[in-house]
């Protein structure tokens, strides 16, 4: 059984995976495409009082109330301007739907495991825990983030915490 599982894992790991890449300031990020539900233009959310600054508020997504997180504010990537290219990536994280604001969406990339390097500790605003690795594609560097773990982290204040 266990041997079979390992073999299975290896097979999955060896297969290239698809990432949706987007820009935050000068940086380029990638998240697992399977977590993405849809991409929408930015619309002014309804502000929620006394929420952290990076929670922009909530929007109406076809009758569902969805919180919007500005990742640029979360990652301290300077002032977040809202223009025509600003988009919201709607993530489907199991039971929850959350939107993230990014500067722009680039494309969908396929990355093989050998293209992914471990990320060094650099003391960034994004904790290393949430970075699965750095992907390289020609001369581009993609910061691959574990978006589900990031969004469910306690300091995101997106969900009720047990404590």
């Amino acid at each position, binding site marked *: 059984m266990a041997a079979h599982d390992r073999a299975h894992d290896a097979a999955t790991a060896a297969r290239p995976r698809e990432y949706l890449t987007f820009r935050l300031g000068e940086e380029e990020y990638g998240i697992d495409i399977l977590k993405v539900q849809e991409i929408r233009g930015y619309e002014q959310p309804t502000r929620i009082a006394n929420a952290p600054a990076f929670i922009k508020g909530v929007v109406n997504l076809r009758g569902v*109330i969805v919180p919007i997180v500005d990742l640029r504010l979360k990652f301290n990537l300077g002032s977040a301007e809202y223009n025509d290219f600003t988009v919201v990536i709607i993530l489907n994280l199991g039971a929850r739907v959350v939107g993230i604001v990014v500067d722009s969406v680039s494309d969908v990339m396929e990355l093989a495991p050998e293209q992914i390097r471990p990320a060094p500790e650099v003391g960034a605003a994004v904790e290393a825990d949430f970075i699965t690795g750095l992907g390289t594609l020609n001369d581009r560097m993609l910061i691959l983030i574990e978006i589900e773990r990031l969004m469910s982290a306690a300091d995101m204040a997106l969900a009720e915490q047990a404590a």
Partner: protein
Amino acid sequence: MSETQSQDNGGAFDLSQFHGVFFEEAGENLANMETLLLELDVDSADDEALNAIFRCAHSIKGGAATFGFQDVADLTHVMETLLDKLRRHELTATIGMVDTLLESGDVLRHLLSRHQAGAAEHEALDCSELVARIGALAHGSAAAAPVPPSAPAPAAAVVAAPVAVPALPEPVLAEGERLIELAIGPLERPDTADHLAELFTEIPGLGRIEATDGGQADAEGMRRFRVITSTPDSDLLDLFSFHVDREQVRLGAPAAAAAPAASPAPAAPAAPAPKAAAVENADYGFFVDLPSEAAPAASATAATAPAAAPAPKPAAKAGDRPATGATALESTSIRVPIEKVDQLINLVGELVITQAMLAQTGQALDPVVHQGMATGLTDLERNTRMLQEAVMAIRMIPMAVVFNRFPRMLRDLAGKLGKQVELQTIGEDTELDKGLIEKITDPLTHLVRNAADHGIEMPEVRIAAGKPALGTVTLAAAHQGGSIVIEVRDDGRGLNRDKLLKKAIERGLPVSDQMTDQEVYGLIFEPGFSTAAEVTDVSGRGVGMDVVKRNIASLGGSVEIDSTEGRGMRVSVRLPLTLAIMDGMSVGVAEETYIVPLASVVESIHLSAGDIKSVGGTGRVVEVRNEYLPLLALDELFAVPRKEPVSGGIMIVVEAEGGRIALIVDELIGQHQVVVKNLEANYRKVPGVSGATILGDGQVALILDVSWLVRRARH
């Protein structure tokens, strides 16, 4: 179709709502059990599956025992014993057991359908042989399972059907109605004739139709029906010609067919398949049973003939065919997970918003140039509104579901207390949202129990007071505008104002003689009045009444008490029709919009700067009608960004949990119904906010949690 008819026409059972649910659930449990049994791998029986089968039998038994269907309860009881031993691994499952259990399922199914059709108890089918057989299996004697060879079974079923058909009971005709034998054909597709049958369900007053051929065409492609109608032949033919050629329709008098059928004689030869006959009979339940038809004959045969043992087997096979036992238990409703309904409601909500936006855009267009567009938009608006109403109606359930719990409870309670109490219910068909129905049951139970326990006096006291010994508790439900009002009335001793006041003073509550009756009665909702021993001295009211009031308030409802001492009292519970929609007042604060639940709004008053007084530096109060109310400015509380300061504004006095505060907002925008959305589904609970809603322009607006605001302002 026959199902609907039988329920509408029958009226054979008194607590039809109650029974309906049981039959529906029992039917589901049976179907479930059958599936599980069929999937059961005898050699390595899955514990999970055995447990599930056990649970099915157990729930049927429970329900049957409650409703007094003794035969069903007895049979399920032995099944349960056997299944219990199986799941405990005291016995090993065998094919014989599975067969016997399946067979029991079929017998149960039509025992149930007999009860559903309102069969009298003395006509009970004898299943003692089956019970004994299961009992023997449960005791481990494998030899006790005479599984009949399956080969003759289909043959028996084939024989059974045609014999059973003439055994149709003689229908009872109302005045002006006549019985017609209808033959349609030859048809290429026999199901075309079913469209005719549908006509009778679609057109009210047309009459009743019943297939006499079990839904199958005969060799010549002819379909046969029996029709009871007061409509002239020519009109019928006109209607039928929508679906079939006029030449294919033959209407005839039924004399030849019906006369022999009414006599018990043909039923006797049907003995080899008595079950089938009985099943057919149950299926055609809407033709009111005559005393001398097939059912008693069939059951008598089943009871006496030793051949009864294999008899259920044909019935089991027959059950596979559409027009038999299975149909009898088939329900006219479907059970759908509530999420699916809510999803539908969400989608319709979206549609409404889209429609509103389209309508707005459409108004900008020249109606002369875009006439087609304008017409389309008008149609869209009407259809959307109707769709929304229809979808909301799906969640609505009649109050009878709640009311039906009370006759039994009251009876038991009266027996225990030595009182004579009868229950009257009014407006059982008033509909209420399912979510609310579930939540209102407990508070209502409390109120009814209180009425019987403390309101209604002992018989001798009542007689001494010149009242009938039999006390009455009345439950009444009615729609009033956008809400439902449920009243619990009793003709008992009522409330005593002086005693209530005395008790309140003892408990240190702020009371005065100037209080209105309403206010005095309201005291029983005070937590201090809630312990039974103390309250009995006062008026005998108030066991947990504070809890009742709180529960109802949390549903957005209110409670009022009215009483006349010695005459009784009335508790009126007013609830919104649904939790999903709420009357809200939208208010503006700077650029933002918030919704205040209208139920908690007392009044709104223009505010001038001088009205606000400070207390101890930070606290602020405002005087409203000789009362100082704590003040909460919404813009400060929610840190609303403001471009420029405003002066004045509007003060809304809101009330919750018995406290009043004043909220300061910039403007009142309007009152409208809002669809309440959950904020926690994808986000978290926000202090001061109870939910969210979507405004006409697609924007989200937060709904204020008035209870929270009151608590915050008062501490």
